[in-house]
C-alpha cells in the first residue's frame, strides 16, 4: 500500500498566521474601546472603514497578481493593517484621507513589493506617513476633544456624517490640539504649569490619552504573554524613549516630561502593535533591541526638535531602512561557536 511520504517533522503545532493576526486584533480591542470611550465614535468608524478598504484592495491586487484570493485573504494580515490605520488616524479624518492611507499601505507598500513577507516597510506606517505629509491640515486639525462617550462627545451618526462629508476640517468645537502638539508649541513661551492648564491635559497626564495608552500597553502585554511578539522591540522602544527624555528633557519648562512621552500620542500603540510588525523589523533578539531603541530615540528627536508633534510613523520607517544593516551585524552566537558570525559573504561584509 502507498503510505504518506513526508519530510520530518511529522508533528506540527497549529497556530497559523491567520490566528496570530486574529490575536493581534483581539489584543488591540482594549485600546479601541478606550479610544471610543474617551474620544467618541471616530476611531471605531475609521477602523471598520479601513479594514473594509484594506481587505477589498488586497483582494483586488491579489486578483491582478493571479494569486489565490480566498486562501491569501484569510491570513488576516490586510485586516490588521486596516485596523492599525483606523486606530492611528485622527478621529474626524475625512474618509478619503483614510482611504488614501489604506490603499497606499496595501497596494504600494505591501502588494507591489510582493505581498506578505516581502515588504521592507511597515505598510500601515507608509500609508500614515503619506497622508501626514500630503494632507497636513486634515491630519492635524481633526483630533477629537477628549470627552466621555456619554458626556458631551458627538453622537455616532454625527461623527459618521462628519467623516463621510469629506470636509478637510471638522466642527471646531469637537476637535482639540493633542497634548503633545499643545506642549510642543506652547512650552517655548510658557512655563510647564501654564501649558498644563490647557483642557487637553485634563487632571492627569493627558486626558483620555493616558487610558488609551494604558489599554494598548495591556493588549501588548497580552501579546507578549501569548508569545506572539517578543519583549525585545517594545522594551527597546520604550527604553530608548525614556532614556532620551530623562537625558535631554528633565526640565519640564523646556521639554515635554517623560510621562507625557509615554502616555500621550501613539507611544504604546507604536511600541506593541506597530514596531513589532515582524516582516519589517529586525530578527535577532539583539537586533530587535537595537531596532526598538532606534525607534524610541528617533521619536524623541522628532517630537522635540522636529516639525511633528508625534513621530511613530517616521521613526518606524526610518528604522525599517536600517533593518538589513542591523540584521547584518547582530546574528546570534550559534551553539558551539566562540562568537557570532557577522555579515554575509558576498555582501560587502
Amino acid at each position, binding site marked *: 500500500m502507498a503510505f504518506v511520504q*513526508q519530510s520530518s517533522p511529522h508533528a*506540527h503545532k497549529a497556530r497559523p498566521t491567520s490566528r496570530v493576526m486574529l490575536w493581534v486584533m483581539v489584543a488591540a480591542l482594549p485600546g479601541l474601546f478606550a479610544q471610543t470611550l474617551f474620544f467618541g465614535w471616530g476611531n471605531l468608524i475609521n477602523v471598520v472603514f479601513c479594514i473594509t478598504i484594506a481587505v477589498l484592495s488586497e483582494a483586488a491586487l491579489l486578483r491582478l497578481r493571479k494569486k489565490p484570493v480566498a486562501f491569501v485573504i484569510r491570513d488576516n494580515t490586510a485586516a490588521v493593517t486596516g485596523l492599525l490605520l483606523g486606530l492611528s488616524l485622527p478621529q474626524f479624518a475625512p474618509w478619503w484621507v483614510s482611504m488614501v492611507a489604506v490603499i497606499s499601505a496595501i497596494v504600494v507598500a505591501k502588494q507591489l513589493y510582493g505581498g506578505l513577507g516581502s515588504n521592507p516597510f511597515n505598510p500601515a506606517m507608509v500609508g500614515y506617513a503619506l497622508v501626514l505629509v500630503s494632507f497636513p491640515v486634515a491630519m492635524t486639525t481633526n483630533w477629537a476633544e477628549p470627552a466621555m462617550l456619554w458626556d458631551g462627545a458627538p453622537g455616532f451618526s454625527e461623527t459618521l456624517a462628519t467623516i463621510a462629508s469629506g470636509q478637510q476640517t471638522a466642527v471646531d468645537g469637537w476637535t482639540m490640539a493633542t497634548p503633545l502638539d499643545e506642549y510642543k508649541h506652547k512650552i517655548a513661551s510658557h512655563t510647564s504649569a501654564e501649558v498644563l492648564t490647557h483642557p487637553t491635559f485634563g487632571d492627569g497626564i493627558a486626558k483620555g490619552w493616558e487610558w488609551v495608552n494604558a489599554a494598548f500597553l495591556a493588549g501588548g502585554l497580552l501579546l507578549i504573554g501569548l508569545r506572539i511578539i517578543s519583549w525585545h522591540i517594545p522594551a527597546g522602544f520604550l527604553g530608548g524613549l525614556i532614556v532620551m527624555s530623562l537625558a535631554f528633557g528633565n526640565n519640564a519648562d523646556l521639554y515635554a516630561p517623560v510621562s507625557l512621552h509615554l502616555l500621550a500620542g501613539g507611544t504604546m500603540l507604536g511600541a506593541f502593535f506597530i514596531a513589532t510588525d515582524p516582516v519589517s523589523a529586525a530578527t535577532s533578539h539583539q537586533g530587535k533591541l537595537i531596532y526598538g531603541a532606534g525607534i524610541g530615540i528617533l521619536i524623541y528627536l522628532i517630537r522635540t526638535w522636529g516639525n511633528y508633534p508625534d513621530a511613530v510613523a517616521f521613526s518606524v520607517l526610518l528604522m525599517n531602512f536600517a533593518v538589513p544593516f542591523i540584521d547584518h551585524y547582530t546574528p546570534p552566537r550559534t551553539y*558551539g561557536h566562540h562568537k557570532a558570525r557577522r555579515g554575509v559573504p558576498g555582501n560587502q561584509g
Partner: protein
Amino acid sequence: MTHLWDFPGGIHPPQHKDFSTARPIRHTGIPERLILPLQQHIGDPAEAIVEVGERVLKGQIIADVKTGMGVAVHAPTSGLIESISEHPVPHPSGMADWCITLKPDGEDQWCSRNPVTDYRALDRDQVLEIIRNAGISGMGGAGFPTNIKLRPPRDRKVSTLILNGAECEPYITADDMTMREKADDVVAGLKVMAWILRPERCVIGIEDNKPEAIAAMRKATEGTQTEIAVIPTKYPSGGEKQLIQILTGMEVPSGGIPADIGVMCQNIGTAVAVAQAVLGGSPLISRIVTITGEAVREPGNFEVLIGTPIEYLLEQAGIQLDKLSRLVLGGPMMGYTLTTEAIPVIKTTNCVIAATASELPAPPPEQPCIRCGQCAEACPMELLPQQLFWYAKATEFEKAEHLNLFDCIECGACSYVCPSSIPLVQYYRFAKGEIRVQRAEQLKADHARERFEARQARLEREREEKELRRKERARAAAEAQEKKQAEAEKAAAEGEAVDERSAKAALVEQALARKKAKTEASQPPPAADITEEKPDIESLEKQLSQAQSKLETMQGMLDEAKAQQADNVEKLERAVAKNHDRVKRAEEALTEARNKLATRPAESQSTH
C-alpha cells in the same frame, strides 16, 4: 542534587508516550525470515563471510568489516543462509542494499559463548575488542561503532560519562521501558564503560516525564557514585549537544566531538548491549523497539531480533491496515516515512509509528514567511532558521553555510512552530545535500588539477634534463673535435718535412684500407659479433639516465604520498623498488659495455 543548565529554544510537543508504556516489553519470537543488512551503522559496510546454503548458529559472526571502521554482524538465531542479495533497507530514500537473508530453523541453537567473569582482570583493549566483536554500535542515533567511540584520542580525557536516558521525542519509549525493566543491565553496562574510560563523573540524564524509569534507575544505582539527573521535559533535551549543555553547562565546539570538552554520551540500549556482550558473552542480536501509533491495537515495546521485518512486528502489535496512513521509522520529529513495511529492524531502529491520517495529518499549504522569528525562538542551536530558509530557497549556499547551516541538528523544532507551515528542515537538508555535492565535485576538480599540474611539471623537468644532456653531449663532442683538430695540426706540423707524394700514397693506402674494411663489413658477420663489437654506450647511457630520472620522480611521489598518508603508498613503494632494479640493471649494462669498449681497442690492434 545535580546542578542543571537550560538550553535555548526548544518546544513542548504532545508526548503520546503513554500509548506504548502500558504493556511490559514483549518478545516477538522468531519470524519466518531475517534480513540482515551488511551496513547498519556509520562507517564501512561489513563483508559476508558465510556462503549461501551454509548453516549458521545463533550468535555466529556472518559478516565483518575487515578493513576500515565497523563492527561485525551476527546471526540472530540458528538457520540457513538463504541468500545474499539486495533488499530494501531502512533509509530515508527507501533504497535497497546488500543483505544476508537467514531462514531460521527454529532450533535457536547458540554458538559457543565466552562470558567474562571479571573484565577488570582483562586489558582495556581486550574489552574493547569484545565490544567490537559483539557488533555493538550506538543504538540511539547514527550508530557509531561503540568500541571506537570508547577509545577517544589520547589527548581527550573523558571526565564526564553521560548515559542519555532523556528520550525527548514524542511516542518513543524504548529507553524508558529498558530502564524500567533492565535497570541492572543498564548500570552494569555503564560500569563497564566507566571502567574503560575512568571518568570523574557518571550521570544518567532522564526527562522528568519518566518517573518509573527514574525510580528504577535510582534503585539500581543505590550506593554508587552515579548521579541520576532528572531534567525538565523539553524537546530536544535528548539531543547529544543539548543534553551535554543541560548536564555540564558546556557546549561541544562546532565541528568537534564531545570528547573535545571531556564528555561522552552513550545510549541506554548501548549500555545494555555492552553488559550483555562483556558479562554474558552475547553479541548484539536483538534490541528493544517501540511499536506505536493509533493504527496498531496493542502498541508497546518489543524485544526484537535484528533483521525482523517491520511487517512482522506490526502484525504482532495488531496493525489495522485500513487505518494506517503514514509509517514513520523513528520519532515524529526526526523520523522518516517508509515506503514499504518489508524493511528489517536494524541496530539503530528504536521506534515505528503506524499513524492514522488524523493522528499525523498532512500540514496545511506553505505560506510566505512573515519573519515572525518563532523559529529562532525554538531553535536549540541558536541559528537563524528564517535566514537559512531564504538562502536555501535562493540556492545561496555560501551564505547559508556562513550562517552555520551545518550546525543544524535537524531537530525540526523550527518547522514545528512555523505559523506559515514552511517545511524548514527539508530546505536545510536540501541545502546541505547540495553543498556536499558541490564539495565533492570541488575535491574531484582539485585532484584533477593537481594531477595535471604534476604532469606538466614532470614533462617540463624531463625536457630540461634532456636539454641539459644534449648540451653536455654537444660540449663533449666539441671538445673531442678540438682535440682531434689539435692532434691533426700537431701531426701536420710534424709531417711537414714528409714528401707530399708519400703523403698522397698514404692517403691512397688509407682509402684502400677503408674500402677493404667496407667490403668486409658488408659480408654478413655473426650477429653476436655486432653487439659485441659495437656496444651502444650512448643508448645505454640514455637508458640509465631515464631510469634514474624515473626513479627520482617515483621517490618524490612516494615521499609526498607518505606525507599525506595517502592510500597508494604501498603501490608507490613497489614502483620505486622496481625502478631501483631498472637503474641497477642499466648501470650494470653500461659498465659491462664500457669494459668491453676498454678492452676492444687492444684486440682490434692485435687482429689488424
